[in-house]
């Protein structure tokens, strides 16, 4: 038992983080919002990094890595507030197709010319699907109503897992913005971050985020290993990540004071994405009910005769 990521896994995630930090900052989000929200150069950059082929088997020209790595990268996409449908296509759609043995044409996903729109009865909207985009609270996402939806639970679990992973990255980014602001904004002759009334709220966000992350990684590994208990792990992760992100979003706005309510502060891009993803692929109530059913309905092995895995 070892709960660490390998150096290779961490290096991969850091590479993506650095790349996105360098090419996809808040000024890019503003440009996309104001001048049209899709820029082919951004997608091409992701393709050139090999990210569209991350979960595509090596025989089809991809990197063939597993869901834990994909979840790490999805968290980086959240941190950068990336709106391109990379996570949906490459980390939800591709693993779903691979699980069904549908390997034809995955080379085109690697090359960036094919997207894999995915929709589930619980989540009947496709990221960057065909047709006109619906107006969303998140100005950078392009959701379309799906013509056809699947009811495959594996797809739902993949979608929920990768939403949770993005949410912990989003939460990290919002906490960082709030902490940095609290260090420089002064009132009553000192940085507002020195006041306990404010720092304790940010500390609570840090607690929620740090404890949500390992649950997300655990869920990714459970999905990778196709454990029977994987759906419950995914629901744990989705609820914990949603709670962490929403707590951090509301706290970060509060910390920014009236500025936090303005378009001028970047925070709202992350806050809106968080809100959107909390409801995606099964909302909080849906996933809480799955945990509830497992615990009280007897499908989760608990009690003195079991260890907890």
């Amino acid at each position, binding site marked *: *038992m*070892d*709960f*660490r*990521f*390998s150096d290779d*896994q961490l290096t991969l995630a850091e590479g993506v983080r650095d790349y996105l930090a360098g090419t996809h900052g808040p000024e890019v989000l503003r440009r996309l919002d104001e001048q049209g929200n899709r820029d082919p150069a951004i997608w091409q950059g992701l393709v050139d990094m090999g990210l569209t082929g991350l979960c595509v088997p090596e025989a089809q020209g991809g990197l063939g890595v597993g869901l*834990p790595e994909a979840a790490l990268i999805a968290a980086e996409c959240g941190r950068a507030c990336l709106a391109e449908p990379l996570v949906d296509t490459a980390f939800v759609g591709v693993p779903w197709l691979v699980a069904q043995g549908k390997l034809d044409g995955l080379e085109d996903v690697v090359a960036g010319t094919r997207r894999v729109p995915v929709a589930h009865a619980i989540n009947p909207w496709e990221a960057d699907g065909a047709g006109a985009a619906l107006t969303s609270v998140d100005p950078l996402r392009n959701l379309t109503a799906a013509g056809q939806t699947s009811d495959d639970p594996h797809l739902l679990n993949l979608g929920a897992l990768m939403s949770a992973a993005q949410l912990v990255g989003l939460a990290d980014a919002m*906490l960082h913005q709030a*902490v940095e602001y*609290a*260090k420089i904004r002064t009132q009553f002759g*000192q*940085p507002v*971050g*020195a*006041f*306990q009334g404010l*720092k*304790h709220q*940010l*500390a*609570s966000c*840090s*607690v929620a985020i*740090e*404890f*949500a*992350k*390992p*649950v997300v*990684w*655990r869920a990714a*590994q*459970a999905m990778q*290993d196709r454990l029977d208990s994987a759906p419950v*792990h995914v629901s*744990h992760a989705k*609820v*914990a990540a949603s709670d962490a992100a929403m707590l951090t979003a509301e706290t970060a706005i509060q910390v920014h004071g009236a500025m936090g309510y303005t378009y001028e502060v970047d925070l709202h891009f992350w806050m809106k994405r968080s809100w959107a993803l909390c409801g995606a692929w099964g909302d909080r109530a849906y996933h*809480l*009910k799955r*945990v*509830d059913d497992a*615990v*009280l309905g007897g499908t*989760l092995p*608990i*009690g*003195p005769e079991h*260890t*907890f*895995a």
Partner: protein
Amino acid sequence: MKLGFSAAEEEFRAECADWLQGQMAGEFKDIKGITTLTAKAERRKEWEQQLAAHKWSCIGWPEKWGGRNATLAQQVIFAEEYARAGVPGRVNHIGIELAGPTILAFGTEEQKQRFLPGIAAGQTIFCQGFSEPGAGSDLASVRTKGRLENGEWVVNGQKIWTSLAHISDWIFVVTRTEEGSKGPKGLSFLMMDVKQPGIEIRGIKQINGDAEFNETFFTDARCPEDSMIGAVGQGWQIAMGLLAFERGVSTLGQQMAFRNELDEIIAAAKANGQAKNPLIRQRIAKAEIGLRLMRYGALRMLSNTDHSKIDGAALTYKIQWATWRRGLGELAMDVLGQAGELAHGSEYEWDVLPNLFLFSRSDTIYGGTNQIQRNLIAERGLGMPREPRGDL
């Protein structure tokens, strides 16, 4: 990331479970399931010795000192099986988890030889002399004084909240050895024999009726000069090193005990029909999620092999489990309803869940209150400005 256990580890688990369950069904049947820290103290000292006799008392220590050099996974497994078998908490927890590792890390070879065999053998029970009436959250404002006199340290002052002092043999004491010093400077870390005329112990009764902790008075209490861990004036550094051990492996056994408590609540809810109440169901589901957060959070924290480096995740651990468990006590009472306010034993004795409700009030206070934890997380973890402090 490798989340399963290997075949060898599963074999080790079976060995642990077999031995522990055998003990709880056999010779030590009478202590099985005890949840307070003080009940049947003498039998529990014998249990410490029984663990030692079978080399289970300090498996994470080096073999040279009576341990097994156990891997992290093995320590996790042992802690889990320990709790799962219904074995009561260790009365020498402080010796095994705190004093021992501190001596191993900072003690001289002679001090290791003097103290470690007794701790490992379950013969030397330790308690911790940190807090004082005027030094609680502000631990560095310790006033208990130590002065050197004819080759002995002579200590005067008072400690408080000294858990299990009344059944302990030794105490480690943070004392102010530099006259006129303030704050973390001028403190030293002494090992003292509790059973001497200069040390007086008075029990403090708690809201759950137990008396686990004590006031400890020092009146010209003495120890040899070479009973100091580290150098004169290094006491704060040693004390902080010790507190880092507190976040160690013991947390995993604690979680299995939490698992047992939550399972007991679930069983109670099924028995009295509250499991059909949607509000209760949702809170049980949330409690389950919270337990998983701790579980994987602790495993991640412990997988970080460099324990000297306290990262943001490690800082967040205490407040998470303490707050979760306080909520668990509240959930237990809401599941039991009015029946939870009535004792069911033949004598006046708290049942497990009402005791959990009362005891868990202390979780968010001892070892650093939730407020102190948030200061630490914000200032050390997030790098936020320190709040203004008064003159020391």
